[in-house]
């Protein structure tokens, strides 16, 4: 069963009709294939026009679409010889963050991703992509490992945020995130991060203090969820749509603000309509981002990464 978002209803209706027609037996009264073709053209136009002007709130829904490619899908699609790594060597393995070594376009890399999980059981195992301190400590461990062996670090971020739980606080959630950010910034190897779905606050930046930050066209990246922001600043979580507008959380807005470097175009109708094509486009974009960084001396990478983050917000954004 395909999952349609609220604003995709008109699209769903036409696609439903097409499906019905395809199952009808051929009859002399009407030319079914002609009708299917007409409707297909119509739905194509509709998808194009809908997705050309998604509002920030609609993008939030697309970014959270269950059919969207997850970090594990990206790893499966782009990384060969993948060897998963587990554990923070102190407490546990946190499956909200997947980690490993492998090859990207033939070269050895370290990979990190926040993983939401696909089916219900899987989602619970991955805690819906909300990592605990163990996850951020595993990330730090893998980043430091990559640094020692000269491997570029690729991260794929898709998280509602760090897990707000009693156990997470007891084991130092804040410290774990801070140390992960520090590890990203100190890595003497290229760090390339992509926000593939939701870039939720501290849980996202923990894996995204990178040389080059990419974002899928319909991904979002924000300091707080629109719902959370609405309930605090408007005292009404129902005003999430308004908050989404105000937060400037779309790829386009963040590029204008100079906070991300590259927007990765998604297939027509969003990455969930064609995950394979979306992942291929992402692979190309990551490759382009990584090329000029490869072979740079570690000290220069670190210095430039610092300058880049220190420059953020110093100049007024281009209108």
């Amino acid at each position, binding site marked *: 069963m395909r999952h349609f978002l609220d604003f995709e209803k008109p699209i769903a209706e036409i696609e439903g009709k097409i499906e019905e027609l395809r199952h009808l037996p051929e009859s002399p009264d009407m030319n079914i294939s002609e009708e299917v073709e007409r409707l297909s053209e119509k739905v194509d136009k509709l998808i194009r026009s809908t997705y050309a002007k998604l509002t920030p709130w609609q993008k939030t829904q697309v970014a959270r679409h269950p059919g969207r490619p997850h970090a594990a899908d990206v790893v499966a699609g782009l990384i060969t010889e993948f060897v998963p790594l587990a554990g923070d060597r102190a407490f546990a393995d946190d499956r909200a963050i997947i980690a490993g070594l492998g090859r990207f376009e033939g070269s050895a890399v370290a990979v990190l991703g926040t993983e939401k999980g696909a089916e219900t059981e899987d989602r619970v195992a991955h805690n819906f992509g909300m990592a605990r301190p163990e996850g951020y400590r595993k990330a730090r461990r893998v980043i430091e490992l990559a640094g020692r062996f000269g491997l570029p670090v690729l991260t794929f971020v898709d998280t509602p945020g760090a897990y707000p*739980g009693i156990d*997470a606080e007891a084991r130092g959630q*804040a410290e774990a995130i*801070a140390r992960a950010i520090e590890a990203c910034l100190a890595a003497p190897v290229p760090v390339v991060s992509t926000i593939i779905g939701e870039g939720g606050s501290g849980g996202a930046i923990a894996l995204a203090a990178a040389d080059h930050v990419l974002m899928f066209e319909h991904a979002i990246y924000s300091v*707080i969820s629109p719902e959370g922001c609405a309930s605090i*600043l408007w005292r009404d979580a129902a005003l999430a749509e308004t908050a989404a507008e105000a*937060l400037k959380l779309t790829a386009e807005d*963040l590029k204008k603000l100079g906070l991300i470097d590259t927007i990765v175009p998604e297939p027509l109708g969003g990455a969930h309509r064609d995950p394979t094509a979306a992942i291929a486009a992402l692979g190309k974009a990551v490759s382009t981002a990584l090329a000029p960084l490869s072979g740079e001396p570690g000290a220069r990478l670190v210095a430039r990464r610092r300058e880049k983050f220190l420059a953020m917000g110093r100049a007024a954004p281009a209108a």
Partner: protein
Amino acid sequence: MNWLTNYVRPKIRTLLGRKDVPDNLWHKCPACEQMIFHLELAKNLRVCPNCGHHMRLPAKERLASLMDEGFATIELPAVPADPLHFRDQKRYADRLKAARAETELDDAIIVAHGTIGGQRAVVAVFAFDFMGGSMGTAVGEALVAAAKLAVLQEAALIAITASGGARMQEGALSLMQMPRTTIAVQIVKEAGLPYIVVLTDPTTGGVTASFAMLGDIHVAEPGAMIGFAGARVIEQTVREKLPEGFQRAEYLNEHGMVDIVARRAELRDTLSRLIGLLTEPAARRAARPSAEVLALPGISEG
């Protein structure tokens, strides 16, 4: 309504109602409900003389209580105001204006340099009364400036936090203050200078999850609320009652996140002693990497 407001004629009322004394001569301790005379409270650095409860101390009073005489504050680096043109129920630009008028501060932080018990220090102290001490670009930039100043003066950097977290009105720009302030800390650490964090009530969100948890030493005031997620969010997520003393300074101390829980009155001595120990001249010389290669025992030995 009383006989005065009801029956005394307006002119006499203004005469009688004239105030030449502050509004709140007496404060009630929020913990033990004891009434405390304002002069006594000020003398006691806003710590309840009855139960020891630490109330929030305004940034300017904090500096005066901690630093030796003769300290100076620096002008905060200018940053573009309201980059998102953010508007919730009020415009962010108006909120900033109101906070500035009310607190007589530029933003939610003050940076000062001088000495603490004779030890050189640059102190960055959060003003919680300025938009909940929230961290936006101005605060991040002030911390970067404080770090550079500490390196320039070969002084310790002391961060005294009191913050609700990121300033939502600056969107992802406020999120970027987490890496930016982390870089500030790295600059100080690489210069071999001590970086000490004093966590005061409350310190949460993006502030805790960046520079505030990266100190060489973490000191916290008794009872201070310190954490990443807010208590309400956690309660809604896990649907259970939070344990007694959860996210308090003592809890963080027990869980290994805070070195010392120090009473406000001891803070100056604690910091001065720590800076002194960490900047021992002979030890610093020894810690500096030298050109001499250490002789390692050969494989054939033993």
